[in-house]
């Protein structure tokens, strides 16, 4: 059975999306990305030399079946984000954009007001908008209404590796969403990724946990497997958690 993830007009067989920051070299990054089997890879526009067609980082990522997702990391408001997205569209020739607006450079927490404004403007300009946001169920619905093709709520502050700290809100978002929900930020171990997938997230985005591990290639594989296992478990319908023991031979079994 085909269990591909569809976002806008594209299908992805892998539900692990990856990032490109923090690696110790482009070659190691390239090998780790290959090992992850990720088909959607995000790259910070500010790291790309858009005037250079031979940009080393981009060259390390580009392969057949890889979809490049430029992100607007570094912008502080909607106006800058829209401009950055247009630059990216011109330079990288994609109308997909990962919308990141975090005016606070310390914790990189997303600005919900500017994000909503930018998402609306970018959708009107023909972009496929993938907004990085706090795990706010109402904001997710608002983004859906303005035409965002998915939502990317955080599991924990970006880069912290703390795991899924926003579980109560992610559950609501997953329950209510009509667009794919991609848990982005805070995922620090394969078990976190598996957990997010078991919750019913459509995909996860992982960067730091792979890039700064002792063995990024092996860690990328581990994440790939964890995402697959988590998705499989979700599809298999997890047994429910109960407060009381349930005897295998119930006391009322004599009743017909």
């Amino acid at each position, binding site marked *: 059975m085909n269990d591909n993830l569809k976002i806008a007009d594209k299908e992805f067989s892998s539900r692990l999306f990856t990032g490109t920051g923090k690696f110790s070299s482009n070659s190691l990054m390239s090998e780790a990305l290959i090992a992850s089997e990720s088909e959607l890879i995000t790259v910070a526009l500010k790291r790309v030399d*858009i005037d250079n067609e031979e940009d080393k980082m981009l060259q390390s990522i580009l392969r057949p079946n890889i979809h490049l997702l430029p992100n607007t990391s570094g912008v502080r408001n909607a106006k800058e984000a829209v401009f950055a997205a247009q630059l990216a569209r011109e330079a990288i020739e994609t109308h997909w954009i990962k919308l990141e607006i975090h005016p*606070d450079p310390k914790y990189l927490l997303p600005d919900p007001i500017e994000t909503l404004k930018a998402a609306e403007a970018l959708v009107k300009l023909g972009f496929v908008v993938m907004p990085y946001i706090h795990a706010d169920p109402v904001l997710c619905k608002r983004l859906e209404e303005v035409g965002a093709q998915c939502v990317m709520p955080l599991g924990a502050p970006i880069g912290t590796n703390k795991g899924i700290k926003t579980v109560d809100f992610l559950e609501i978002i997953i329950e209510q969403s009509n667009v794919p929900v991609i848990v982005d930020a805070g995922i620090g171990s394969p078990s976190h990724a598996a957990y997010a997938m078991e919750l019913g997230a459509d995909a996860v985005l992982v960067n*730091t946990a792979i890039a700064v591990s002792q063995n990024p290639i092996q860690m990328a594989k581990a994440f790939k497997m964890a995402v697959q296992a988590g998705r499989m478990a979700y599809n298999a319908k997890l047994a429910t958690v109960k407060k009381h023991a349930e005897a295998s031979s119930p006391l009322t079994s004599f009743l017909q």
Partner: protein
Amino acid sequence: MNKTFQSTFDTYNWDETLKSIHSKTTQDVAYALSKNKRDLEDFKALISPAAAPFLEDMAQLSMASTKKRFGNTIQMYVPMYLSNECQNICTYCGFSMTNKIPRRTLTDAEILKEITFIKSKGYDHILLVTGEANKTVGVPYIKHAMELIKNQFSNITIEVQPLDQDEYEELIKAELYAVLVYQETYHRDEYKKHHPKGKKSNFNYRLETPDRLGKAGVHKIGLGALFGLEDWRADSFFTALHLKYLQKTYWKTKYSISFPRLRPHSGGLEPKVEMTDKHLVQTICAFRLLDEDVELSMSTRESATFRNNIVHLGITSLSAESKTNPGGYAVDPQTLEQFEISDERSTEEIAHMLTNSGLEPVWKDWSNNWN
């Protein structure tokens, strides 16, 4: 918002602060190291003499914290001195007004010649440096220099005389990214001794410069003290106090800390309080343990050996092959430098050192045309 750092700063007494740092115990250090979030009292413990036996623990934690937040990367930048004209007397500086040296301010053609050399080395983040000569090297000159080079660099930082808020706003519109402004020392009386003449002698105006920058909305502010002018422990504490105040007040701004130590130069000032290599490592690690996100920068003042090792212990940005004289790269390498550099390796050698150490030198990490 008229409050500035001065109102916070004035509630502190230098001697009492130093006494408080020296009163920290082994238990205070162990407690600071055991915490996930550390405050300024923890910072005092980490820069205290009691922390000396814990240096390896601090280094290990600092390395892990830096790696988690910044990954295996080091941001590369290069300084370009535009002018050595200066109306200030500073006891420690080669550009000091009383030093009889040939003065030079780069022309357009000379600036372009310099950046041709710098670009050939791969740099995309540049730091423009001047002395303080407002008539010849004022805002119009700085702005013009920025306009001249901004298409060649993604990220422009300046280290020039303190300016007014509206002047910073003007430069930010011209795509200025960051400003470095070092207090030199937070000790008022010593500051006066080292800056007897010129606009720089105004301690408060300099102290409030980051406030004006924060209000102007600059992307990044760089802080620091010139270690050696006064007690490095107290100056480190006041730098940290300044950082924490700014982070709370101007929350959209990024911050960086630099760690210049007095070096031999034509003025010949010897450090009043020596900061050894161990002390410097302790200070760098203490800043990282205080703040996981602050950028920590290391110039070529330090030796090659020291820099080879410190890049793993908290440092996030590095300059290389620096010339500290106007025209030093290509125009007139013979003019007097502001201070002697210690690590004289080429950019390529530094990049290889980083790569061989498992770190990626990052040349571009900004786009200056979004705003």
